[in-house]
Structures are given as structure tokens and as C-alpha cells.
């Protein structure tokens, strides 16, 4: 009996012990070695063009600040979020500077693991940044990270240029034209597609297509800070998207299920006609599929559904500083350096990303170096912040709902109600 009691006691006490232990063991990161050189640890995700541009930037920075050294550690994307979370949670090890996806930052900001953006830098950014790029870094009026890009998954689309040329087709100007073109040119046998007319099915494309359709037809899915998809417009647009797969058969849901291949890969393999995707996909195609922009494919404005040119965008890649770091000041020095317009422009050119700062996005040097960015640059002002949520949760919930409708014939009314519940 006594032994049982002790066991129970232990069971109750241990989590408490662990908790207090975890909070106490907040160790300091980065060492101030012999008062001279500071070494900052910088974690990023692994993607060749990114890492190359980072190295260039770091070299320039270290030249300007010889007393600061930056050590980069790059992780495969699949593990990166996990690693960042785990390191912030274990509060030992970890980095001084984190590259962060805005969608995750949203959950970290309230926990105090990040150091707030210094006022000077913040004021500079507030005036010059688009709304979506700062959205997720804000918490209770303070900002915990800075954007390095404008993540646009909507507004432009990849098109299969040779196919359009061969069949004497012109790029669509209206949504309906786009859908009818897609329907006519899709080729499939059962679940196997040889040509996907309009492949909007991917973890990113599907949610952003839907959210943007809601916005551009004059609706909204946000009530204050709460998401609500139980509205006529949301259901009507969702019905359209379901029909595109079920009736028009312009693609299937393979991109959500069991496949490592995404919609833009099909286009690069000459097995899709139109694919809504961000411009970051272009360098991927050129490098991995050995094809050329302007020849095997093109990037054109995507027609808006409805009457307004409005669309949803999330806070993309940004940088944040570990609040437990011993060298937050040096870390912010580095980040300010990255955000200098002349550096930011180069960074966005090298990575093929849309710049987060208005001044940089319309810099002629940028427009010239990244010509395919034009369709998106033209509609940047119509973008609004997706909403206060971990976007991975939002996207996963929307994709799950969509897969559920297609696979199980779940009624749309029931599906949106469940979605509302899932993302609360």
C-alpha cells in the first residue's frame, strides 16, 4: 500500500519538477569569446538558391562587422519546423537567429521566446511594408520578427506555353474563359491524368485559391479575429472548386494525397496546362527540370474570380531573434543589414522572391532582374493578410475538408461547419 502511494505521489510531482526545471534551465546561447568576436548561430531551411544568397550576404556582413561571425546551419524543410520548435522548447542549444515561416511565428510570439524588433528598425518597416508580410509577427501591438519576402501564392500562374502555341490558344482573360479552356483540354483516364487543365490542387494552391475567390467576389471569411466559412459566398465558391474536380475534371486530388509531386511539377513535365503558384517555383523548374522560362513555360496574370482584384497572402519567410540569446544586439545588427534595401533587393533577386518592402518591390533593378514577377507586382496592393492563425493548421484543415468532400461526398454545409470547428 505504502509503495503504491509513493508511486502515485511521484507521478504527480514529476511533471511539476520537470516544468520548473525547464523554466530554470534557460541557458544562454552564443558565447562572447575573449570580448572580441561574437559568434551567432543562424538556422535556415535547406534550399540551394537560398543558402547561396545567404552565404553571399553573410560574407558581406562579416566584412563590415569584423567582430561578428555567423555560423549557418541549414535543415531539410520537412524537419525544419520541428527542429525550430523543439529547440525553442528544450531551451538549450538552438540558434541566435532563426529563419521562420510567418505562419509558425504566430504561435511563438506569445510565448516570449523571441526578442521584440528594435524600435528604429520597426518604424522603418511599418511605413514601407505591405500588410500581409508583417501580419503574423505581430502580437499585442509588439512585433517579434521581420519579413524577408512577400509570399504570394496567388495572383499569377504558370502556363504551358508550347501547348498554347501549338493549339493556337491565347491565355485566358477571365475566370470563366480559364475554366472552359481547362475543361476542354484536360485528358484523363480514371485517376491517371495525362493533361491537367487547371491544377489548383496543392497544399498551398487550394487554400489560397479558395480564400482569394471569397475575397475577390466581395466576401470575407474573417469576422474580427475569428474565421467563419459558414457564409453563402464561401460555400458557393467551394462548390465551384469541388465541381472543377468532380464535373469538369480539370485535375484530381492527387496533390493532397499520397504524392510527393506538386501541381507545378506536372506543368514542368508537360502534363498540366495552367497552375496557380508563386514565382519561387520558376527557379525550381529551371534548375531541377532543366527547362527555360519563356520557352517551355510562361508566367502570366491569373484572372480573378468575381469583380474585385483582392486576394489573400500569408507572412512568408522572415527572421527572428532568440530572446535567450546572449547577443541579441548583434543578431539584430545582422537582420537590419539584411533588410537594407540594397541587400534586400539582391536577396530577393537571387531567391526569385517578391520583396516585402514597397520601395524594393518597385525598384527598377529588381523588376529588370526578375521579369516574371510582373503579374504579381501589379496586384500586390490587392493582397490582404490571411488572418491570425498558424497557417499550417489553416491549410491542413482546408485541404482535409476538401479531400473529405471529394472522397466521401460530404455535403458542403456540413464540411464548412466542421472546418470552422477545426480551426478554432
Amino acid at each position, binding site marked *: 500500500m505504502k509503495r503504491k502511494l509513493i508511486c502515485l505521489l511521484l507521478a504527480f510531482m514529476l511533471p511539476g519538477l520537470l516544468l520548473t526545471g525547464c523554466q530554470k534551465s534557460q541557458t544562454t546561447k552564443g558565447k562572447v569569446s575573449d570580448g572580441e568576436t561574437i559568434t551567432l548561430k543562424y538556422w535556415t531551411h535547406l534550399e540551394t538558391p537560398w543558402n547561396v544568397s545567404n552565404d553571399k550576404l553573410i560574407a558581406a556582413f562579416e566584412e563590415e562587422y569584423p567582430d561578428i561571425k555567423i555560423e549557418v546551419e541549414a535543415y531539410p524543410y520537412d524537419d525544419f519546423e520541428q527542429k525550430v520548435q523543439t529547440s525553442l522548447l528544450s531551451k538549450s542549444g538552438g540558434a541566435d537567429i532563426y529563419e521562420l515561416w510567418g505562419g509558425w511565428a504566430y504561435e511563438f510570439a506569445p510565448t516570449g521566446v523571441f526578442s521584440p524588433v528594435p524600435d528604429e528598425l520597426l518604424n522603418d518597416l511599418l511605413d514601407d511594408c505591405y500588410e500581409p508580410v508583417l501580419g503574423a509577427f505581430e502580437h499585442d501591438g509588439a512585433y517579434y520578427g521581420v519579413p524577408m519576402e512577400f509570399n504570394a501564392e496567388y495572383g499569377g500562374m504558370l502556363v504551358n506555353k508550347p501547348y498554347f502555341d501549338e493549339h493556337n490558344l491565347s491565355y485566358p482573360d477571365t475566370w470563366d474563359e480559364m475554366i472552359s479552356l481547362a475543361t476542354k483540354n484536360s485528358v484523363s483516364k480514371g485517376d491517371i491524368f495525362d493533361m491537367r487543365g487547371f491544377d489548383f490542387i496543392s497544399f498551398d494552391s487550394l487554400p489560397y485559391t479558395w480564400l482569394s475567390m471569397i475575397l475577390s467576389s466581395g466576401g470575407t471569411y474573417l469576422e474580427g479575429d475569428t474565421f467563419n466559412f459558414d457564409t453563402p459566398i464561401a460555400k458557393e465558391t467551394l462548390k465551384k472548386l469541388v465541381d472543377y474536380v468532380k464535373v469538369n475534371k480539370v485535375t484530381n486530388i492527387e496533390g493532397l494525397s499520397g504524392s510527393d*509531386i506538386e501541381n507545378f511539377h506536372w506543368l514542368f513535365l508537360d502534363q498540366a496546362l495552367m497552375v496557380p503558384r508563386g514565382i519561387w517555383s520558376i527557379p525550381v523548374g529551371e534548375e531541377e527540370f532543366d527547362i527555360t522560362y519563356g520557352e517551355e513555360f510562361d508566367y502570366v496574370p491569373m484572372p480573378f474570380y468575381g469583380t474585385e482584384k483582392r486576394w489573400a497572402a500569408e507572412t512568408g519567410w522572415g527572421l527572428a531573434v532568440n530572446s535567450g540569446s546572449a547577443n541579441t544586439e548583434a543578431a539584430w545588427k545582422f537582420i537590419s543589414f539584411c533588410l537594407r534595401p540594397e541587400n534586400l533587393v539582391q536577396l530577393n533577386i537571387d531567391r526569385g522572391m517578391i520583396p516585402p518592402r514597397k520601395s524594393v518591390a518597385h525598384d527598377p533593378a529588381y523588376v529588370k532582374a526578375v521579369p516574371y514577377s510582373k503579374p504579381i507586382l501589379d496586384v500586390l496592393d490587392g493582397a490582404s493578410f490571411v488572418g491570425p492563425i498558424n497557417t499550417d493548421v489553416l491549410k491542413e484543415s482546408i485541404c482535409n475538408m476538401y479531400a473529405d468532400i471529394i472522397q466521401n461526398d460530404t455535403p458542403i454545409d456540413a464540411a464548412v461547419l466542421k472546418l470552422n470547428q477545426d480551426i478554432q
Partner: protein
Amino acid sequence: MKNNRFVYTILTPIFICMIVFTLLPILIGLGISLFDYNPLAVSSPFIGLENFKKLASDGVFLIALKNTVIFVLVTVSLNIVLALLIAQAISSMRSNRTRSFTRMIFFMPIVAPLAASSLVWKVMYANKYGLFNNILGHLGLPAHNWLGDPAWLLPSIILFTLWADIGYNIIIFSAGMDGIPHDFIEAAAIDGAGPVRRFFFITLPLLGRTTAFIVTMTLISHFQMFAQFEIMGRSAGSPGGGGPNNVGMVLTLEIYKEAFKYKNMGYASAIALVLFLIILIVTVISQRISRSDWRY
């Protein structure tokens, strides 16, 4: 023999290690499951049995529970039946060489990490460029979206798991069959029993102890399968694994996802305890049922 000093100097560190990493975690897990424990959160309040109550209404947990049970029951029974048949087939091979060659082939997948072979099979299962759909296409049969279609995901993973894991049991059954004295089989043959009857009335009963061991070990290991569900169920649309809309979720993967992706360690601990209870019950039952007195 007796030598307490020797015994206790050795056993103390051994048991400390065992307690810290195996037995203590159970108690800690039990404790954590009563808290809303999220290591990132500012506070982790005691919530009693709330986590366990939440389980009943958590759709993903229920899917995971169902899938785990189906997966284990189907895979383990297929595994045992096939292993017995194959072992019997091997023991009826004439030359020693073919016998050991066949055993070797079936055992080969065991030495490959599940994580690696899952990746290979994932490409074999791929819709457009995979091996299986290509073979079906050449045979004029309709293709399937093996890992994307909820109806096919679990069967696909079961087939893979059989391939990857059956070798152990074949070897052990095969060794068990080799251990059966020849006189038994020959006597039966002289009495006019055919191969099928010999298998059911002589070989199978004599393998009772081996079967009990195999059933228990296979059950325990299959309840813990993780890599194939994470890897094969992972796609752009379900980055954490578990298949589209979680149709391929199992308990191990859900524990991992809840604990390390969503940081709901309290809730994940509750799921872990459920898994532990299931494993415990199933093992005890399987031991009871298959306890057999056949000896030779």
C-alpha cells in the same frame, strides 16, 4: 552461489538505467497525462482526466484507434499464416541450398531500415510513374491511387509491412519445423496421412510454443509500427504523415504528432497510455489463448 557485494554493484547501475529509461517514463507519462502540459506554454494546469475525456470526441484519435486495430489484426494474422505456409514450403524443398537461399531472400528486407524501404515502396506505389500502376496498365487493369485513395492506403501499407517483416517469422517457424523429429512425420505418412493432414495434425500442434512466442512478439512490434505510416502517408497535402485527411493515422504517429508537432504533450501522453493499455491487454490475451502444452 552467493556474493551480495558483487551482485549489487552490478545490478545497481543496471537497474538505475532500466528504471530511468523504461519504468519511470511510464509513471511520468501517467502524471503528464493529467496536465494540460505544453512545454511552450506559460502555464500547464492540472486538468485531471480532461485529456482522457477529450479522446472520446476526437475524430482523429478514433480513426487512429480503428486503423491501429485493423492494421495489427490483419497484418499479424496474414503474417503468421503466410509465414507458416512459406516455412512449410521451404521445409519441403529438397536441396539444402535452395532452402537456405529461399530463407535468405525472405529475410533480406529485415536488414533494411523501414525508413529506407518505405521510401522505395512509396515510389513503387506512385500514381503516375509507379511500378504497380504500370504493371496494372500493361495487364489492362485500372490503376489505383494506392497511397492517396482512403480505400487503398491501409492495404498498401499492410502489403509493404508483410514484405518488410515476414522474414523473422519464416525463419523461426522454419527452425521450429526442422526441430520436429522425422519419426513423427514418417510415422504419420506410413499411416496414410497426406501432406495437408500432416501439416495440421502434426506440424502445427508441435509448433505450439513457437507460435505463442511469435504471435506475442509480432503483436507487440506491429502495434508500434511508425516509419511506414509517417513516410508513406506523408505528402504535400499531409506534411506530417498519416495520409490525406488523416485516413491513414495510427496511434504511434498520433502520439508523435500531438507531442512533437502540436506540443500537446499532456494529451499525447493520454493517447500513449491508451496504446500501452491496448498492448498490455492484447499481449496477455494472446499469451493465454496460445499457451499450449504440446511438447515433444
